[in-house]
């Protein structure tokens, strides 16, 4: 039998964007992004095994504009994925499934992510003496 080319899940091309689907996609994108960011994190940690010179080079790379740009994205992704992950845990135990609460919790996650990212970077830039 010849394989028919039916659309496979997740049907992104025929799905009207909604709060729920956008949050779900963002959750995955942030998760995958965090894992790519972990490559940089691994470099930063393991550099310490090679002594002060290597570690301090890694520190200055993290502090460069390019490093800060990636870390900024990493910060937002971390807060978003963490907050939305809590939402998922609540769903796993069967709570918060009503459309109203789903929309409210989505708004709370987005607000929390922006707020915590701003707060974290306010502290970070103050400490770095760049503010």
């Amino acid at each position: 039998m010849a394989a028919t080319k039916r659309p496979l899940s997740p049907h992104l091309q025929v799905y009207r964007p909604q709060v729920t689907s956008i949050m779900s996609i963002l959750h995955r994108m942030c998760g995958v992004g965090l894992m790519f960011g972990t490559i940089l994190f691994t470099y930063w940690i393991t550099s310490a095994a090679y002594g002060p010179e290597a570690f301090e080079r890694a520190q200055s790379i993290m502090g460069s504009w390019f490093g800060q740009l990636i870390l900024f994205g990493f910060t937002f992704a971390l807060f978003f994925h963490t907050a939305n992950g809590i939402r998922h845990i609540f769903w796993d135990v069967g709570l918060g499934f009503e459309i109203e609460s789903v929309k409210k919790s989505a708004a709370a996650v987005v607000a929390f992510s922006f707020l915590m990212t701003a707060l974290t970077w306010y502290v970070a830039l103050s400490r770095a003496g760049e503010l």
Partner: protein
Amino acid sequence: MEMRSHLSQARGPGSTDHGVQHWISQRFSAIILVPLSLWFVYSVLGLIGADFAAFQAWQSEPGNVILMVVFLLAMFQHGQIGMCVVIEDYMHPEWLKNTSILIVRYTAFLACVSCILTVLRVAFTA
């Protein structure tokens, strides 16, 4: 010839009891990662501009060694499972899917071991 007993055939297809293990492990690691991620962000803020000596002083505090190792284990476990789930969902050719999963698993394992050994080395040579 069917090698499985009538009982096992009746109970369901394949090894249904192992499949759920990934799902549970993903949730277990997720829950512990909530406080640990916040601790991690807080710690990194304290390490901005730190030289090696300051990093070593921070890393060699007993509480920080323990939390860091637990954070690394949970984070790589959680991230590795998550990446595999995404790959299983979006990469349809069998060879591409299996190769990607293999690469993700080995890379995560290697990175996790490297990070933990570094943390211990830095902490115990202070």
